[in-house]
């Protein structure tokens, strides 16, 4: 298919990239391209300039800091996370990346692109909120950090605004995590998803696909009834579509949240 006309830039440093992003109003980063090219094909959006991030080695690494924090470069692909020995410090990450789509999409799609597109059905936004992640965003004004809860601001919208680049995703140490989803076919798009982490003082449970941003709930216990009660108490107003009615999604939200917590409990013990 013919895409709309577009300009193309291929910077070799983060500084150059944020400079191009800042100097063209309609410039957008091009990471793995597994969402943005389809968005352009469907004419849902037409960026004026694509800023190809492939040469930015600064965004490529997967590193384990001395305090156990796992630092992913925004351009780390799902396949790289799955294969990384360092990323196994937080095993749920590789496990969830391995459930995204298929080999081809996993070879190109990046962690940064997944969360910056913030499609409510994507796997990683709820997971990264559950894990207590911090995002680092660069712009020509410098660097700032944003906790995951504040990073997702609406459907397809994040705190990384025009002229900005997500550079790093920092995930604290931990292992008591779980993920569960009802999907369209095996490893397909999520109809409802949930991620849970039991590492902090109270469980963090995050439901995906039910709102423009991942919904964080804090049950007062890790037993099934406490989790279901907390999800019910969130008064979710999920969308209805051909895959599930709003009522059914509300029901699934409780079910997958309870499953995610159950898996996290098994992992923790």
């Amino acid at each position, binding site marked *: *298919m*013919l*895409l*709309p*006309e*577009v*300009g*193309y*830039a*291929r*910077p*070799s440093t983060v500084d*150059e*990239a944020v*400079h*191009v992003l800042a100097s*063209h109003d309609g*410039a957008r980063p*091009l990471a793995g*391209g*597994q969402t943005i*090219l*389809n968005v352009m*094909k469907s004419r849902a959006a037409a960026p*004026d*300039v*694509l*800023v*190809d991030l*492939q040469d930015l080695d600064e965004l490529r690494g997967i590193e384990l800091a001395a305090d156990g924090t796992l630092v992913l470069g925004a351009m780390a692909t799902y*396949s790289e996370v799955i294969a990384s020995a360092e990323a196994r410090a937080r095993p749920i990450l590789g496990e969830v990346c391995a459930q995204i*789509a*298929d*080999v*081809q*999409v996993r*070879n*190109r799609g990046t962690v940064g692109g997944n969360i910056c597109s913030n499609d409510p059905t994507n796997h990683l936004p709820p997971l990264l909120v559950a894990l207590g992640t911090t995002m680092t965003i660069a712009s020509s004004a410098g660097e700032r950090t944003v906790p995951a809860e504040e990073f997702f601001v609406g459907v397809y919208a994040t705190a990384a605004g025009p002229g900005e680049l997500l550079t790093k995703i920092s995930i604290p140490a931990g292992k008591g995590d779980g993920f569960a989803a009802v999907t369209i076919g*095996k*490893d397909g798009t999520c109809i409802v998803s949930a991620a849970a982490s039991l590492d902090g003082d109270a469980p963090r449970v995050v439901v995906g696909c039910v709102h423009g941003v991942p919904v964080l709930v804090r049950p007062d216990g890790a037993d099934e009834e406490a989790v279901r009660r907390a999800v019910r108490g969130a008064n979710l107003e999920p969308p209805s579509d051909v895959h599930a009615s709003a009522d059914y999604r509300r029901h699934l939200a409780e079910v997958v949240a309870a499953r995610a917590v159950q898996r996290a409990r098994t992992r923790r013990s």
Partner: protein
Amino acid sequence: MAATAPVGGKTVTVRVNGTTYEREVEARRLLIHFLRDDLDLTGSHVGCDTGNCGACSVLYDGTLVKSCMLLAVQADGASIETVEGLAEGDELNDLQQAFGAHHALQCGYCTPGMLMSATALLREKPHPTEDEIRKGIQGNICRCTGYVNIVEAIKSVGA
């Protein structure tokens, strides 16, 4: 910063199946159209154009990708393998022959992509289990043969 000024197109140098090509392309040109229309390598097919069917799968610097989900300009400097590169001279390679022997194709539309996915899998795992084969071709849709014979063909090569 001039080096990063946006351009509407550029000259790219791409190696495909061992041959180096230099072509002027528009930034909006998808890699699949570059291969099929500019280089006349029509073995890779377009099934869906949205990253769902896998008919356009090629190896890109050794990794399996869907060539309708990349721009040709991104491929500047890359090395690509397509289905045209599989045969050894005039002889189909073992995998291609196995597809024939096991009736792993009917219309053949999905076959170039299936072969590239199977090639990527067998390089990484020379003796894949059935489960690994099914996972390996998860991104490739076949609408007429069904998957049983395709899985059998790949299994016979990896045995």
